[in-house]
């Protein structure tokens, strides 16, 4: 029955062809791998089984996310590895190569698995069964889990589990990962208490068409009745994909997300800020005045604090993305956006990363993982930092408030300041689209890879999975604040307080930061910036909003005082041309170390982040130069 002895497409031959599966190692399995097609609910099951005892990292050397977790079974720990969703084991895509390497025990740094949990969608069995053939042929102890069993029964489908177990030669169980039903059989399997070495001959077929024929035969023998197509899913599609209401609903969703991120997160952010301020004052009260106190309060607390403040926004964003994704709406949103994205050479799947980039480019770049086409993914990563992220917002607000008097343009609806802010959003968006166009017609030109996207039925998102997702993301975010950002802020603090003169910290203009600012002054002079702005720009590399703190420190030190207001100080120090140039500079420049580091991690090298940094830098410089020139010329004429 094995048609595929030396199939060249596979590139390897199966050792365990047609043999009985190996039994468990003595004492039960230690390393268990979760395998399944995309949308099989594999990750939900993983979350169910491991709860909070999991960690997310990248597999060494590749950009595929590795999720590992521990499960206690009878007082013994079992390591669970969640593989990326795959349809087959032929090493054609990066996901499949990783899955194959892990399953064969060839992945560096990952233990060889001794059992497999194969997760298939019970409502979609014929299609998902095609993965069973190559996985079962590996000869490892395997349990087949038919997930979403509750949905199968409620929609009137059924399957003979015992017949399927006979056909596949492996234990089979119906489960519902979302509701946590049927998991006791999974634990029984993990404990090694289940008989796994049933005898059945499973062919290993590379060719999708043959695998379908095989799956078709099995389907007959196990009297599988497919569930009725979900009616309400169709009704919702009729509404969400309606030619008129569809785009309107999409706009409403986007506006809600924005509104929430800007206004709902506000009280929380102010709360955190107040808390950090309180900690700072307490420390100042308790500790004697010294360089260490300054390092602790201004450097560590102030620096990491200014980033932790964004936690509520990041959490809200991931809550929304979680709800949209788990409910199935995200797939429809991508479908609606596909046409617009196609105009700049991208596809619908780039829509969500770009939308999230309005909050922060870091999660956006992580969200670009859902784009399978590598070139489209890199293009999306490269343009994401152009979207106006929340760190730019405080800078924009400050400069606009300092230089633009508030007047109403359209009655009470739109004032000059809001219009200027909107203009900056449009500027960033236009730069992103233009760059996408440029990239996709030059270095990232790709064969038009077709947009192929599975539309999952609509489902209620569960609190459990949303909660885990948010905890997961906060952990990543806080770890970043605790490592990279802490290092950078301490470094910047040191640069502003060194070199010591007679054991005393120097004035800011004599410090390393001041010296650096002065060194780059000739370069930024044509843009209308002086050394203070230069020092601000350097410190803004840690995070764009840091420039505000730096400028406040510099002006404070110069005796112009915070009481006079940062706005007044800026007005004295910058020409209107310089102010506009500064806005344009912030709109285009890649002044964000965390983003560069994420791009480096996600693209697996320094080539793309360096290119991005250089490109955005050149654009920012020329843009600011032009802005300063035009505004100054315009003002001197009128």
């Amino acid at each position, binding site marked *: 029955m094995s048609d595929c002895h030396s199939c060249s497409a596979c590139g390897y031959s199966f050792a365990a062809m047609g043999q009985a599966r190996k039994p468990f190692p003595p004492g039960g399995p230690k390393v268990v791998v979760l395998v399944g097609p995309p949308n099989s609910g594999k990750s939900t099951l993983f979350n169910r089984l491991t709860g909070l005892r999991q960690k997310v990292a990248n597999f060494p050397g590749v950009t595929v996310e590795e999720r590992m977790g521990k499960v206690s079974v009878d007082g013994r720990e079992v390591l669970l590895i969640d593989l990326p969703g795959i349809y087959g084991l032929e090493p054609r895509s990066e996901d499949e190569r990783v899955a194959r390497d892990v399953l064969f025990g060839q992945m560096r740094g990952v233990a060889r698995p001794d059992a497999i949990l194969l997760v298939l969608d019970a409502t979609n069995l014929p299609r998902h069964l095609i993965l069973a053939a190559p996985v079962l042929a590996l000869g490892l102890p395997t349990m087949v889990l038919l997930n979403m069993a509750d949905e199968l029964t409620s929609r009137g489908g059924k399957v003979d589990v015992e017949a399927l177990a006979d056909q596949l030669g492996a234990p089979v169980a119906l489960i519902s990962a979302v509701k946590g039903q049927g998991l006791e059989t999974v634990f029984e399997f993990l404990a090694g208490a289940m008989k796994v070495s049933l005898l059945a001959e499973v062919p290993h077929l590379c060719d999708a068409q043959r695998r379908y024929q095989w799956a078709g035969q099995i389907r007959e023998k196990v009297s599988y009745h497919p569930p009725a197509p979900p009616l309400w899913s169709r009704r919702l599609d009729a509404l969400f*994909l309606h030619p008129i209401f569809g785009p309107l609903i999409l706009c409403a969703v986007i506006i809600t997300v924005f509104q929430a991120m800007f206004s709902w997160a506000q009280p929380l952010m102010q709360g955190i800020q107040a808390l950090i301020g309180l900690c700072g004052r307490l420390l100042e009260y308790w500790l004697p005045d010294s360089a260490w106190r300054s390092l602790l309060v201004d450097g560590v607390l102030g620096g990491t604090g200014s980033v932790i403040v964004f936690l509520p926004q990041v959490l809200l964003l991931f809550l929304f993305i979680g709800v949209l994704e788990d409910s199935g709406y995200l797939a429809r949103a991508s479908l609606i956006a596909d046409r617009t994205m196609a105009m700049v050479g991208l596809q619908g799947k780039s829509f969500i990363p770009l939308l999230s980039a309005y909050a922060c480019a870091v999660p956006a770049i992580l969200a670009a993982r859902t784009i399978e086409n590598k070139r489209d993914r890199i293009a999306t990563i490269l343009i994401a930092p152009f979207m106006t992220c929340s760190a730019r917002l405080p800078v924009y607000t400050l400069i606009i408030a300092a230089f633009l008097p508030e007047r109403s343009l359209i009655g009470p609806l739109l004032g000059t300041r809001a219009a200027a802010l909107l203009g900056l959003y449009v500027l960033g968006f236009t730069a992103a689209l233009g760059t996408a166009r440029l990239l996709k017609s030059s270095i990232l030109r790709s064969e*038009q890879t077709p947009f192929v996207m599975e539309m999952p039925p609509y489902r209620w998102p569960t609190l459990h999975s949303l909660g885990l997702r948010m905890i997961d993301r906060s952990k990543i975010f806080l770890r970043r604040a605790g490592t990279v950002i802490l290092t950078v802020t301490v470094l910047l603090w040191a640069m502003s307080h060194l070199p010591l003169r007679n054991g005393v910290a120097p004035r800011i203009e004599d410090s390393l930061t001041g010296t650096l600012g002065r060194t780059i002054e000739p370069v930024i002079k044509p843009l209308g910036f002086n050394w203070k702005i230069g020092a601000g720009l350097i410190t803004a590399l840690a995070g764009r909003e840091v420039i505000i703190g730096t400028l406040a420190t510099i002006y404070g030190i110069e005796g112009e005082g915070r009481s006079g207001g940062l706005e007044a100080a800026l007005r004295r120090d910058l020409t209107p041309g310089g102010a506009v140039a500064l806005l344009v500079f912030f709109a285009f420049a890649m002044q964000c170390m965390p983003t560069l580091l994420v791009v480096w991690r996600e693209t697996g090298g320094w080539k793309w982040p360096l290119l991005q940094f250089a490109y955005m830098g050149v654009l920012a410089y020329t843009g600011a130069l032009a802005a300063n020139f035009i505004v100054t010329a315009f003002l001197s004429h009128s």
Partner: protein
Amino acid sequence: MLERLEVPDDVARRLMELGFVPGSRITAMFSAPGGDPCIYRVNGCEIALRLETARKLLLRTTSPKARQAL
């Protein structure tokens, strides 16, 4: 009824894994506002394709609706 996929091999493989195997029944469902891309029901699930891809899937027509859609 799907007869042949006139697309490059890697695209064909991906489509086949999603259920577009010769001999399967394809029904056109909703399309995005503007008519493109369109959702097709095949082998029990719904997949969205751009028209440019869908046009390269050669069908043997079984119902007037399918002929209209592709």
